[in-house]
């Protein structure tokens, strides 16, 4: 292999940097176009009624999607309560104790589950919960979303806890601190920012899911009557209103899309801030 001349290497270096920069710009442009489009279409829908009123029949102006906003929050909150504790504990187990066949299998199936199409999880929740109980419900939607969140929380928690240097845990054990206290009160707090980041990103991921909700939450024009009734959600409003022929409804759909984008953006931002705080603290 012959040595390249310095001027050629410099040219090649600049050329490759330009290619990389171009790719970054393309990624940025796609995001910018989507966001700009959603904002330009959606901002007109945002007003007081949008956030406080129920949907109105076609032809009547002044309706809102308050029930869908509350419904989305309710479903995602329930899903988080189900998925985050189980996922975090499973991730801690995998990071610190998981070495046998069980752990290897949990890891493998988590990875498969992460890539599972969400509509498959929707039909799973439909046949497992909605059909036996005989009705669409908020809790079936929460369970479907929890299934999607679980593997994300498990693997991000595992990675975060794995990043904690082993000498920290050994230092705790060497003081005569019992293993469970060393794990929960010394090791895990070091990984706290990473765990919170993973949980927030999984929330961001499922907040926009619509396919599983079609089979489970179903949607509703009214305030929810409880956990076992059909419930409205933002992604469902986007889907149903967006394909409707009525401009008023389409406008609401754009508004919902904007609210979702802002929500996901905010969650990502919070996750990022939590992470950067950790880095600067060390």
């Amino acid at each position: 292999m012959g040595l390249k001349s310095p001027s050629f290497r410099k040219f090649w270096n600049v050329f490759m940097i330009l290619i990389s920069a171009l790719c970054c710009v393309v990624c940025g442009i796609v995001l910018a176009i989507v966001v700009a489009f959603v904002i330009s279409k959606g901002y007109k829908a945002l007003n007081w009624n949008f956030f406080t009123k129920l949907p109105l029949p076609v032809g009547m102006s002044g309706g809102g999607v308050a029930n869908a906003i509350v419904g989305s929050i309710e479903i995602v909150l329930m899903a988080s309560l189900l998925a985050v504790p189980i996922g975090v504990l499973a991730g801690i187990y995998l990071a610190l104790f998981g070495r046998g066949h069980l752990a290897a299998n949990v890891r493998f199936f988590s990875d498969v589950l992460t890539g599972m199409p969400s509509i498959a999880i929707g039909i799973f929740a439909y046949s497992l919960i909605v059909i036996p109980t005989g009705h669409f419900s908020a809790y079936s939607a929460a369970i479907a979303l929890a299934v999607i969140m679980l593997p994300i929380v498990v693997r991000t928690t595992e990675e975060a806890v794995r990043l904690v240097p082993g000498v920290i845990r050994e230092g705790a054990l060497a003081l005569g601190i019992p293993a469970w206290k060393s794990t929960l009160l010394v090791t895990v707090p070091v990984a706290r920012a990473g765990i919170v980041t993973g949980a927030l990103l999984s929330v961001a991921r499922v907040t926009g899911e619509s396919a599983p909700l079609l089979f489970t939450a179903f949607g509703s024009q009214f305030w929810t009557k409880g956990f076992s009734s059909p419930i409205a959600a933002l992604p469902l409003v986007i889907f149903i209103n967006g394909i409707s022929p009525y401009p008023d409804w389409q406008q609401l759909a754009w508004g919902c899309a904007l609210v979702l984008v802002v929500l996901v953006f905010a969650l990502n931002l919070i996750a990022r801030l939590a992470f950067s705080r950790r880095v600067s603290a060390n």
Partner: protein
Amino acid sequence: MQTIENGQPAQTTETTATSLEVKNLSAYYGKHLAVKGVNMNFEPGAITALIGPSGCGKSTLLRCLNRMHEVIPNARAEGEVLLDGQNLYEPGVDPTDTRRRIGMVFQRPNPFPTMTIVDNVLAGVRLAGKPPGDATMEEIAEKSLRRAALWDEVKDKLHKAGTSLSGGQQQRLCIARALAVDPEVLLMDEPASALDPISTVKIEELMRELRGAYTIIIVTHNMQQAARCSDYTGFMLAGESATGELVEFDSTSKMFTTPKEKRTEDYITGRFG
């Protein structure tokens, strides 16, 4: 047994420190025998150094003494470690009790990153149970930091992060943390190898101050350090199939002037390792 230091008889170790004895101790990583059949009697209140080339099993042996070896997956030890006459490897002995009685300082300073300086010192006391006595938490923290010769440097910033200190200060913080639970024995695994020369001197001074109150066992790569600081020296060497054995164990002055074993002499005079 009389203690000899630098050729001069040392002050007789009048001590309340606890005795530690190793009988036929072998350590394994899975099927690999890493340390074979070690017998040693550590003088109470004295400083014993373990020296030898990399991979000779000196750190492994050290970690067997407070049952930290078995924390590594598939690692196990056989034989007896007698602390004040009690075998720590007897069934029914709780390893967490053992570790409270035998403190440990690691090669790299490892203060807990989420805790302040004072929380680091008190971590063991809070999470492993308060040592006997009616001292308050503040008193324990101050006493431990003073013993670790760190108090004057940190007394005005006790509530800053432990990781905000310099490397040498962090290591003394870890020593304070180990002392806070009031151990009987202190194990030090190359405590100064990650530190600059000035910090190293401070750690060595500190060891000499703690001498007498604690039975101290230190693993070191640095032969000068062993010669400077220790009363006794054990030389370990890995033979065939990387199994470490104790070659010779005697007072430090004898080890460094008139070793019995040819291999000890070769190592100490720098002919290998």
